[in-house]
C-alpha cells in the first residue's frame, strides 16, 4: 500500500533542527530491528527517510529495500508499535518510493554490526569488495547471486573455506 510520496532526503538527517518529539522518535526507531537481520535497526539499514512531528501527529517515512521484501510489512508494524509506546501522538507510517533505497544507505555502524554477525557488507562504496567476515580474506568466490533473503547473496571463502552471506550491493 503506497501512500502519498512527499519530500525526500538524500540521506536521513537525524535530529537536525528537530524538537524533542523527533529525537525521541529516532531513539525509539534505533531499537526497531529488521526481522531477517536482527542485528540491524531500521535506522542502521537506512530505510527511515524522515520523521516529522506537527500538530500532535508524528509522520514517519519508510522506504522498502526491495519491492517484494516480505519483511516490509512486519517492519512497518514494528515501527508503529515502537512509536506508539513513546506516546508521541498519532503515528502515520508512510511508504516512500523515491529515491529508491540503495545499499549505500547502510550506516557505518550497520556495516560493522553485519560483519560481526557473519554477513559481509560492501566495504567501499560503489566498489563492492567482498571480505570474508570470519578470516578477513579477500580470496572469496561467489556461490550464487541470491541468498536466503532478497538482500543477500551467497559466497564462500577460499582461505578458511567457510560459506557466508553477503549483503547485496544495489
Amino acid at each position, binding site marked *: 500500500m503506497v501512500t502519498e510520496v512527499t519530500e525526500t532526503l538524500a540521506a536521513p538527517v537525524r535530529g537536525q533542527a528537530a524538537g524533542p518529539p523527533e529525537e525521541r522518535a529516532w531513539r525509539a526507531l534505533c531499537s526497531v530491528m529488521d526481522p531477517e537481520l536482527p542485528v540491524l535497526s531500521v535506522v542502521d539499514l537506512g530505510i527511515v527517510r524522515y520523521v516529522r512531528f506537527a500538530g500532535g501527529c508524528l509522520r514517519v517515512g519508510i522506504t*522498502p529495500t526491495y*519491492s*517484494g521484501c*516480505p519483511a516490509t510489512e512486519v517492519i512497518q508494524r514494528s515501527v508503529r508499535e515502537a512509536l506508539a509506546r513513546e506516546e508521541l501522538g498519532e503515528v502515520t507510517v508512510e511508504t516512500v518510493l523515491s529515491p529508491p533505497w540503495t545499499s549505500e544507505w547502510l550506516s557505518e555502524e550497520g556495516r560493522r554490526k553485519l560483519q560481526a554477525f557473519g554477513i559481509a557488507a560492501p566495504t567501499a562504496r560503489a566498489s563492492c569488495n567482498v571480505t570474508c567476515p570470519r578470516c578477513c580474506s579477500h580470496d572469496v568466490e561467489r*556461490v*550464487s*547471486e541470491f*541468498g*536466503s533473503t532478497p538482500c543477500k547473496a551467497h559466497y564462500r571463502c577460499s582461505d578458511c573455506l567457510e560459506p557466508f552471506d553477503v549483503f547485496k550491493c544495489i
Partner: protein
Amino acid sequence: MSSPSAEARFRYILRLADTSLILGQRLGEWVGHAPALEEDLGLANIALDLIGQARLLLAYAGEIEGRGRDEDALAFLRDAPEFRNVSLAEQPNCDFGQTIVRQALLDAWQLGLYEALVGSADARLGEIAAKAVKETRYHLRFSAGWLVRLGDGTAESHARVAQGLEALWRFTDELLAPDALDEEMAAAGIAPSPDALRLRWEERIGAVLEEAKLERPAASPYPWHGKRGVHTEHLGHMLGEMQHLPRTFPDAAW
C-alpha cells in the same frame, strides 16, 4: 501532447503489472524443483521482486481506475481475458533451459522499459520504475549468465536452450510491436518510444545470444495479443491455481 484518459492509463499500467505478476507466479512454480538449491533460491528471489513490482503497479492501477479495487482484487478476482500481460510471461516453465530463455528475453525487455519509465511523465510510474530498474538489472545478470553457461556449455545444455529459444521466439514480437495504446502512451511521454525500446532489447539480446553461441530464430509473423486480453490456454490453468484460495474463501486472512 494530449493527456490520455484514466481508463487508458489504467489499461497500460495493467500490462506492466500483469506481466510482472504472471512471470513471478510462473517462477514461483520452481520452488522446491530447481536443479540446485542456489538456483531454487535465485528463481524464488526474482519471483519475489516481480510480485513486489506487481503489487506497487496494481495498487496504482486500482487508484487510477477509482472503482475501489485494490491490488488483491485486481490480482485474484479478474478472469483471464481481463489480464493484460504479454503472452510470453504466461508460457509454461518446461525445463530449466526454457525457463532461463523466457527469463532472459523478458528481463532484457523489462530492463529497457523500466530504464525509460524512470523519466515518465507519470511521476508515480517513474518512482516505481526507479526501484524496479535496479532489481531487473540484477535479474538479467542471472538469466543472461545462465543462458551463456547453458548455450556455451555441453551439447545437451546447448540443445535444450536452443529448443527453448525456438519455442519462445514467436512471442517476442508482442513485446516490441506497439499497438494504439502503446503509441498513445508514448506520445504523452508516459511510456517509452517503441523504437527506442526495440533498439535496446535487440542490442541486449543480440549480445547475449552471440556469447551463448545461439542462433537467433527467424521472425514469426503470428501476432499474439496477451496485452489486449487474448491469451494462450496456459493462463487460465495458472489462474485456476493462483486464484483458487481467495475465490473459495473470500474473507480468508492470515
